[in-house]
């Protein structure tokens, strides 16, 4: 990306496409220009604007961790014009990428702490970046717990990675599906994420909680975390809003005086509590 034109995207080649769930895909992208790829760096939590030239841009977090060089990954669901066009792309196609934008999950501050990841449905991707980042630097953190649920078994994303993480000895993984979403051979728990969280009752002492999910899940999860003793400063989440420029100029992603693209997308609950409920 030229230092001159902040709207000009990097050219990225789609190296690998993974079908995660119905309508949900992960792209592994490499920089078409190797030099640009070598100089590219980002931190967990940041997002980018992914272009289909001729259609427009769409905003997704960078779902791969900064500890893995040479590529970035994004996961998206087919919803509108741009994501439908992305879904038609094939391995080898060129798309655009602008980033990294936004603020970060402060992993540096979490050395020696327990990490609790709570995610629902298509909201696992923003946390996957942090999970993999933490796993790549495993001995910096104490206990790592992942509680993830989706509506049905088919809707679970990163299925093979969830399995890998479960097989490691040093991560506790609880994958659940909503009541009615289980298949006959489903061996895991069945229940909504907030309920499963309450049952698992992870300790709040010296623990950072990261929560990402549909608004209803977040609404019901926060009281559970409060009951478990988590303080608002130790609960992290991400916000999404309609974006166009991604760099704080087009004026549309603000929640009150906060721009989600510049001051976010990562926010602590303490910060969210000071913001108007206009999102």
């Amino acid at each position, binding site marked *: 990306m030229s230092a001159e034109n902040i709207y000009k995207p990097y050219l990225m080649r789609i190296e690998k496409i993974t079908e995660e769930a119905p309508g949900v895909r992960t792209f592994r992208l490499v920089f078409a220009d190797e030099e640009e790829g070598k100089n590219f760096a980002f931190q967990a939590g940041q997002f980018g604007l992914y272009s289909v030239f001729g259609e*427009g841009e769409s905003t997704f977090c960078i779902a791969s961790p900064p500890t893995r060089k040479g590529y970035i990954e994004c996961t998206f669901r087919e919803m*509108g*014009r741009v994501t*439908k066009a992305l879904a038609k792309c094939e391995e080898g196609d060129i798309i655009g990428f602008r980033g990294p934008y936004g603020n970060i999950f402060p992993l540096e501050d979490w050395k020696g702490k327990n990490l609790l990841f709570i995610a629902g449905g298509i909201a696992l991707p923003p946390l996957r970046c942090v999970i993999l980042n933490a796993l790549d630097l495993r001995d910096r953190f104490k206990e790592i717990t992942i509680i993830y649920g989706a509506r049905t078994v088919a809707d679970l994303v990163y299925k093979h990675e969830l399995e890998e993480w479960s097989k490691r000895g040093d991560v506790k993984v609880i994958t659940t599906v909503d009541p009615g979403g289980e298949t006959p051979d489903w061996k895991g728990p069945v229940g909504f994420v907030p309920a499963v969280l309450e049952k698992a009752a992870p300790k709040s002492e010296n623990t950072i909680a990261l929560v990402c999910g549909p608004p209803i899940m977040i609404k019901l999860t926060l009281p559970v975390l409060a009951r478990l003793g988590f303080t608002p400063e130790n609960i992290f989440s991400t916000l999404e809003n309609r974006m166009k420029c991604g760099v704080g100029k087009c004026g549309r992603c603000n929640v009150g005086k906060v721009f989600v693209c510049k001051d976010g997308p990562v926010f602590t609950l303490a910060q969210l509590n000071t913001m108007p409920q206009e999102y």
Partner: protein
Amino acid sequence: MEELRKKARELLETGAVKVVIGYGKGSGQNARAVFVRKAEYADKLICDESCVQNLAVYLTKPEVKALGKPAIVAKLPVLRTILQLAAENQIAEGDLVVLGVSPDGKIIDLQNFKAIEDYVAQFPFELTPEQKAEIEKIGKMSLEERWQYWQEQFGRCLKCYACRAACPLCYCSRCLVECNQPQWVPAAPHAIGNLEWHIVRAMHLAGRCTNCGDCERACPVGIQLSLLNLKLAEEVLKNFKTRAGASSKAEYALGNWKEEDKENFIK
């Protein structure tokens, strides 16, 4: 005016309506739309030559509908629009109270749509001499001149959509131009984007527009929009013998096929 205020007070006091949509004093010499909900504020209502906005635009606006059953101060252009909105099933008899206002400022009792139709029939729509002259002037232009004329007009367009916002008949909850799969009409304010927008809008209004002129009044850059709609209204009249705003049961000329429709455009 006092009669109007009295009637408004009555309607609000008896609870017959929840809001009176009318005109009040605005900035400078202008009037502005007011929404009187308490009988003691009925004195805010005015009705004179400064009151030109087509208030019918508020009959389909969600924020105003949420206030409850309205009474609406309706001069002739507004009455025509009310009939057309009724013809398009956007309002039903009994949904609103119509406070008709005659050209010389008297309140007219219009109990139902039939009464409005009968009243409006006394004032058949006619182009003003200025409008006739403008349309003739453009009609006499060669195709090239006409193209240049409209290119200049549309060249000013900023895509602010004030024309659409002010139009009581542009009530689509999702305007065509807001569709991006595909992007039928380019959103950007360049030559083709502007031309397509205005043509599409004029065509969508052909046979429906009651020629109140609010689109042109709303336009911040003075595009002569009403000429397009006036011309198309004349074309619809010529070809389908119907004009919008005359009946609450009118059929949409471009949406109905009749055996006697001429197909002389197929060559």
